[in-house]
């Protein structure tokens, strides 16, 4: 299935299908040898440092997650992401709710059930909380609450993060 590079696990092989972002990003990645059609191996992932290591044609390169998240790859793995890992512009479908207690009641009552579609609208200026469009209204929640919602990405947001002066959507 199609997935962001950053969602894949270590020791898997993936094929680069698309690069999200403007020309600058494409050029950057192309110069590193990461082009559409290339197959790469993910050597290891480092979530604390926010980077991953790839191997292609014998060389190893290290990529920060910000850049790596713009690479869409085809993988045999079944990818299950959580809501807090999505990007602005993504359209996702909820697959599982792992939250328990009051938060669970709240989420279910607001319509966050399995199968519901969400549009990721934005992240707050400080990065947390996030805002989604669900069933025609806008819902916000903390990243820690979003972590407990597993989703399947239906469409990848093509919006570049550092768009200047576009009314951020």
């Amino acid at each position, binding site marked *: 299935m199609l997935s962001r590079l950053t969602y894949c696990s270590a020791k898997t092989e993936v094929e680069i299908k698309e690069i999200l972002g403007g020309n600058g990003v494409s050029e950057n990645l192309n110069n590193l040898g990461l082009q559409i059609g290339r197959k790469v191996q993910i050597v290891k992932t480092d979530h604390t440092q926010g980077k991953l290591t790839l191997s292609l044609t014998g060389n190893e390169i290290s990529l920060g997650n910000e850049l790596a998240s713009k690479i869409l790859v085809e993988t045999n793995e079944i990818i299950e992401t959580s809501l807090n890992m999505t990007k602005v512009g993504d359209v996702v479908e909820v697959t599982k*709710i792992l939250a328990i207690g*009051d*938060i669970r*009641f*709240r*989420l*279910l*009552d*607001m*319509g966050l*059930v*399995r*199968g*519901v579609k969400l549009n990721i609208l*934005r*992240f*707050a*200026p*400080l*990065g*947390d*909380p996030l*805002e989604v469009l669900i*069933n*025609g*209204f*806008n*819902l*916000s*929640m*903390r990243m820690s*609450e979003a972590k407990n919602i597993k989703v399947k990405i239906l469409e990848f947001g093509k919006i570049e993060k550092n768009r200047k002066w576009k*009314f*951020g*959507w």
Partner: protein
Amino acid sequence: MPGSNEILVALAGNPNSGKTSLFNKLVGANQKVGNWSGVTVEKYEGSTNHRGFNIKVIDLPGTYSLTTYSPEEIVARKFLVEIQPDVVINVVDSSNLERNLFLTTQLIDIQANLIVALNMYDEVEDHKTKIDVDQLEKLIGAHMIPTSTVNGLGISSILAHIVDLFTGAISVRKNKLVFSDKIETIIENLVSVLETEKEITSQYFSRWLAIKLLVNDKDVYNIVRKYPVWIKVNSILSKAIQQSKTEFDSDPEMMIKEERHSFIRGAIKETVKYAPRVKKSTTEIIDGILINRITGLPIFAFFMWAIFQITFTLGEYPMLWLESYFSWLGNIAVQFIPEGVVQSIVVDGIIAGVGGVLGFLPNIMILFISLAFLEGTGYMARAAFVVDKIMHKVGLHGKSFIPMITGFGCSVPAFMATRTLKNESDRITTLMIIPFMSCGAKFPVYVLIAGTFFDRSDAGNVLFGIYLLGVAIALLSAKLLKTAFFKGESEPFVMELPPYRMPSVKILFFQMWFKAQMYLRKAGTIILFASILIWFVSNYPKSIQITEEYSNKISTVELAEDFSSDSKEELIGNLRTEEASKQLEVSAVGVIGKLIEPLVQPLGFDWRLGISLVSGIAAKEIVVSTMGTLYSLGDSDENSTALREKLLAIGSYNIPVALSFMVFVLLYIPCFAASIVFHREAGKIKWTFLYIFYTMTVAWIMSFATYNIASLFL
């Protein structure tokens, strides 16, 4: 109840569904606000007449569902299930049917006599959305009436339907939401077990209980658990949970809620035709500016600054007007009442007291109308959204920010503003730390002390440092209190960001007026009583010796022949001030001040500073004037050079003392009025005790530290 001509109607619906506007349209000015017993949730009730029937309307708090985990949901559910009003009007935001109808299906479950008001219908028409109301009625199973408080659509129809439903002219549509076979089987099993217990079925609908048991409703569990049938019920529930895990990798609660949502979605698909969305909605455009990554925080800071300015600068004018009105009253009293105890009690006790109470009113009213405006437009949710990350780091909620900022002006409205925090632990924590946001009344004290002991450039920095210290202590305290008393009880942030709307000015005024009334009724009376009490302890006991001594001295001056009347006046004035100072020393306040001297000595204070601090418990503004009196200087304020010189002249007062004094004033218990409002908002006496203990302890420790550390370096 049927038979009489009194109809009890409850309004239930999501927040932001226009329920309050509909309530106002139905009852107009015939309304009053109180409190639901035991919780800090406001209760709005009103009445109206239609066709000879007296209709009493209760506006229930806005809820997304009837699950009981927030005070609002508990209040609403309790009222609907236990009181069982004659008619329930479910106010629905017609542009948001999917989420709103979730509550509707639950209301149908409890077999309420339901009328659904498809509210904000004008927006539906604006968006060119088409709703087949007849078909929707049939599918969902309830009467539906399009309404709009903007153009008056449907209001009279609602009233007519209320009466008709009550008299039986029309009947409730008996449609119930039918779940999938698997769920229905489990429900049937539970219902047959529950029906064997007559006591339960006489009070509650068994189908509703069954559904609630399956969705893990705590309250219903507690009800059924008391009966012997619980054993059978529990085994059915456990089996159901097992089954759904193995067969569907889910649980009954999830399945029921999913089925509810898909039922609603199906009904909407059949009956609602949305016009294609051509351009961005106004809300999207505004949000693009107000909460985008770059401008979000600065804009938020601007709005906070604006509220603050409006409240305290605009509030200046009515405050000054009130002040002058009361001093005019005081002068009249002095003229008409002969000098003595009565005059003193009327002027210094009652008039000063009432003046003090009413003095808060302009600030409260302006603050609340600003907050109501921000809340009504929908910006409040955005504000919490923007600032939540910082607040959450110390265990607070995004919504804590505004009450805290308000605290910089005055604690009284700040305490009242914590009502927006639904979760008790968030609310109590915020209440406890507001006092550390240095209030406006403390400012003159800082100006006096910093201005006296530091030169101009340093004084400004010292002042800033004090305010910063307050904020730091507030944030640290939040963390401390949360871990000590409220481990892991944060309110989920899951929150709707409603579309921007223009709130009705009439409603804003009503809400502000009710808050003002509440303040006057509850806090006002006690503050007045407290003011008289404080007057009493500041003036008594009086020493007859001193009175006689000064009376003689004054007569001597009056009778002396070799003084001009001007210099006589001056001398007498000085004598009177000296007398006041000595009397203050022997009054109850003074005695207390001297008694606590050993306690404040380690902080560098002497008995005069001690008394000034004690007087500050009554009201912080009094600290400076008390100091003026104690140093025998008559009418002094913070800019008085005489007072400054006097302070500098006292050998034991130096910079460490100055710093330590300001720190103490910053942190110790707020004024009496604020404490009373705190108690009312916190609700339980144990919080008030904690608040007193905590502020005093923190003040003492920080003051002690400041004095001793400063003494080492300066």
